[in-house]
């Protein structure tokens, strides 16, 4: 508490001008884990003094102090008092907090980058599955460390709504370090940027660190997509980067819904459209219900726009993390409307969502029969496909083929299933 009062007083001197010599970054407190709060006070001529309180001091005290000294040296800080309150933060977190504190006091373009893990070098494809993508608050390192273990299709480090306004700057640096240091175990590496100009600035902290996909919140038109793309291209050029960065606009307003088609085909980089129902219903001035009648039009409109553009429509998150049955029901409705994925706010939702979007055994078997009937009719040169006494129209075959393709991609059946069946029959 003491530091916070001091900071306030130093921020606003009697002449009303900002004049800062103390900075604080990070989090501490009873419930905070795997994070640290760093107070930095610039001094003159006293050298570096580090006051470390840490629950892991006996095991990592020396290495924490060495890291702090290295960062201060990197930013040419020679005289400072640093007080650290550490709850077991990993080195990349400590480094992010220290850098954030320094940048509150010193203007610099330097970045203290932790090593980039080779495991994180992968790229993703436009058509990969995005059934589940796990939202993680961008300034809460404790939730990030093991996030990759839960088999989500994507992991979203969020810089927008889950980060308090006064923590936005330090979250950027933390997310940058997380992209470099946390093994995502193959999940698509996603970040949700802020709205407006701040969001475009966020990109500088993400694009050089192999982010696979950027979520654009409260998207209302193609302009912003184009702007974001320009920024991404210029960063890629500057750093000579080749990897494609995909975009997933989130539509959360009436205007956004009206412009969903324009947004969906604004750029080749747009691979999915997501809907944000909390904000959308607020924009309409209606209450969000479980049945969702109030957003039915918006959801279907967005699905149609996405399908027309050949990209994935993605549903909003389901907020009751304790009720897995209701979640599954919600996913099944979502799937029946045409959505191809949903956001998660808790790792336990991942498996339920995946299960919901995965075709079940009965669906696959029925589709196999239809496709098989179609194939044998083709071989026999028949113009009409029949299954038993029932005639099958081409759209039915097309739908069955889609389910089969999905099952093959999910490794539920072999790509060569049709020949395998025939050879058994022979």
């Amino acid at each position, binding site marked *: 508490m003491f530091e916070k009062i001091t900071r306030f007083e130093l921020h606003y001197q009697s002449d009303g001008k900002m004049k800062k010599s103390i900075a604080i970054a990070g989090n501490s407190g009873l419930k905070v884990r*795997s994070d640290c709060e760093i107070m930095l006070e610039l001094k003159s001529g006293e050298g570096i003094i580090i006051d470390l309180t840490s629950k892991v001091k006996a095991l*990592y005290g020396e290495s924490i102090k060495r890291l702090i000294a290295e960062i201060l040296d990197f930013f040419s800080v020679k005289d400072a008092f640093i007080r650290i309150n550490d709850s077991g933060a990993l080195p990349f977190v400590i480094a992010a907090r220290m850098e954030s504190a320094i940048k509150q006091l010193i203007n610099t373009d330097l970045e203290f980058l932790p090593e980039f893990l080779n495991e994180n070098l992968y790229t993703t494809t436009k058509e990969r599955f995005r059934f589940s993508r796990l939202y993680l608050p961008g300034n809460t390192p404790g939730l990030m460390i093991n996030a990759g*273990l839960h088999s989500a299709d994507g992991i979203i480090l969020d810089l927008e709504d889950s980060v308090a306004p006064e923590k936005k700057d330090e979250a950027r640096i933390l997310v940058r370090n997380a992209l470099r240091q946390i093994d995502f175990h193959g999940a698509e590496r996603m970040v949700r940027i802020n709205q407006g100009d701040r969001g475009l600035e966020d990109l500088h902290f993400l694009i050089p660190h192999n982010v696979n996909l950027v979520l654009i919140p409260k998207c209302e038109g193609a302009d912003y997509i184009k702007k974001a793309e320009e920024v991404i291209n210029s960063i890629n050029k500057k750093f000579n980067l080749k990897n494609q960065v995909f975009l997933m606009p989130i539509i959360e307003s009436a205007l956004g819904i009206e412009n969903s088609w324009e947004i969906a085909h604004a750029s080749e980089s747009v691979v999915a459209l997501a809907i944000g129902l909390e904000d959308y219903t607020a924009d309409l001035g209606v209450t969000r219900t479980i049945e969702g009648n109030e957003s039915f039009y918006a959801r279907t409109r967005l699905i149609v726009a996405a399908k027309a553009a050949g990209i994935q429509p993605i549903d909003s998150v389901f907020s009751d993390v304790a009720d897995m049955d209701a979640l599954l029901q919600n996913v099944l409705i979502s799937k029946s409307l045409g959505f191809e994925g949903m956001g998660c706010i808790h*790792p336990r939702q991942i498996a339920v969502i995946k299960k919901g979007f995965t075709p079940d055994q009965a669906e696959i078997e029925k589709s196999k029969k239809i496709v098989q009937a179609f194939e044998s009719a083709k071989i026999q040169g028949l113009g009409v496909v029949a299954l038993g006494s029932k005639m099958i129209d081409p759209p039915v075959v097309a739908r069955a083929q889609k389910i089969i393709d999905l099952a093959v991609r999910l490794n539920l059946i072999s790509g060569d299933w049709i020949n395998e069946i025939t050879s058994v029959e022979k």
Partner: protein
Amino acid sequence: MPIKTVINAAGRSVPLEINGQPAIPFKGVGKHKPGGRKYSPPIPACSDYPDDGNKVVGSLEEALRKCGLSDGMTISTHHHLRDGDLISNKVFEIASSLGVKDLIWFPSASFPCNDPVIKYLDDGTINRIEGSMNGPLGRYVSEGKMKGTAVLRSHGGRVQAIQDGEVRIDIAVLAAPTADCFGNAKGTGGHSACGVIGYAKADYLYATRVIVVTDNLVDFPCFPMEIEGNYVDYVVVVDRIGIPEKIISGTTQVTKSPDRLLIAELTASFLVKSGILKDGATIQAGAGGTSLAIAVFVHQILKEKGWKSKFGFGGSTKYMVKMLEEGQMGFILDAQVFDLDSVKSIENNPNHVPYPVFNAYNYHSKGNLTSMMDIMILGATEVDLNFNGNVVTHSDGYLLHGIGGWQNCLHARNVILPIPLFRDRIPVIVDEVTTLCGPGELIDVIITERGIAVNPLRKDLIESVKGSGLPLKTIKELKDEAEKICGVPQKPKFEEDIVAAVKWVDGTVIDVVRKLKTM
């Protein structure tokens, strides 16, 4: 004069003498056979006790005086009232006011509510504690502030020490939720019900003097009696023996941590894929959040497959009770209960049976329960590359936990440790455990959120999960992964002074804890 130390069979340097008594170094699992006769307390005579059977005296102080409380005595208590215990501290408060010195406190476990005894350690009333040391008490001991050397024993090791006469209890002060004037007592009834008081059995059988303290005196006979009045000297009635909400947690809770749930899921998956979990398999898991989640997953599996576990060994929780009630478990044998559902169950369900630790865990006995268990789910603060386990100290060298039944349970057929790979940056897998509590040859599987390591000694288990799709790794790989994420920790520095001895289940010394060098 420095105490002579030797290297024991586990490679640890241990003293040949502890608190002035000779100590036997650990010889290897199953190697030490003590011989001789069991300890026997003095023979009493009925003529010294009231003919009407009424042994009630006015106060705990009066009872302690009548028992001849004096310097250097060993006082035992049980821990069934857990963190709600109001009696243990009271004993030492009385002793201190009487000017008694150098007592040895011999609890079956201590809880945070026992922290006030630190002042009786400071004022010389207590010389040492022989029992589990948690929180501030553990710090106190680790910093070398206790006069005598602590002796840490497992629940089974404690009753073994009593039976074999290594520890001779002068006065056992046994809190009882319900008792009669003759001293018959049980764990149910009254407002301080704890379910069972099985940990008190060896104490009342072997102590020279026994005091039963209750806040629920009932007419003779108190039935069914867990403590038999024929062994009891005095009965004391007080307003409260404990704080109910701290004795039994209203409800035990499955972990909500996604990482712990992942560990639980992997554990359940391992149990099925290895074939260890099968129809009839016997199982024991604790009351921690991860263990409870495992119990829930195991219950689902048993249900789906139509299997039934022959019996489970408690501490019971509502999740075990549910298995019993829904037909997936034949019996619950129980040494302690953890929540209200379990208290209700043990009172009403004939297949939920009290089973004293004395019978379940005593290694110097004609067989015990733990080696009959198929599946044993345990925790650890550290495990090393040789699968050795530590449960008493943290990696920073501080003594922070008791052994509980952990060592005893290592004798089960399949010992599985579901543990996080690191806790708040502190890796759980280390080169060498800070304190050795259990030899690696008894620890079979380590299950972390980042992979499963099977002890290379268990070739059968390794074979059984080949090609199962489980994330199998060597323990070295797990350790390297943790250190890649957390960094390599520096080692705590110790002085030469021994602050605690860790006994193996047979009474031999497996390791010691040394005083921490404070910076």
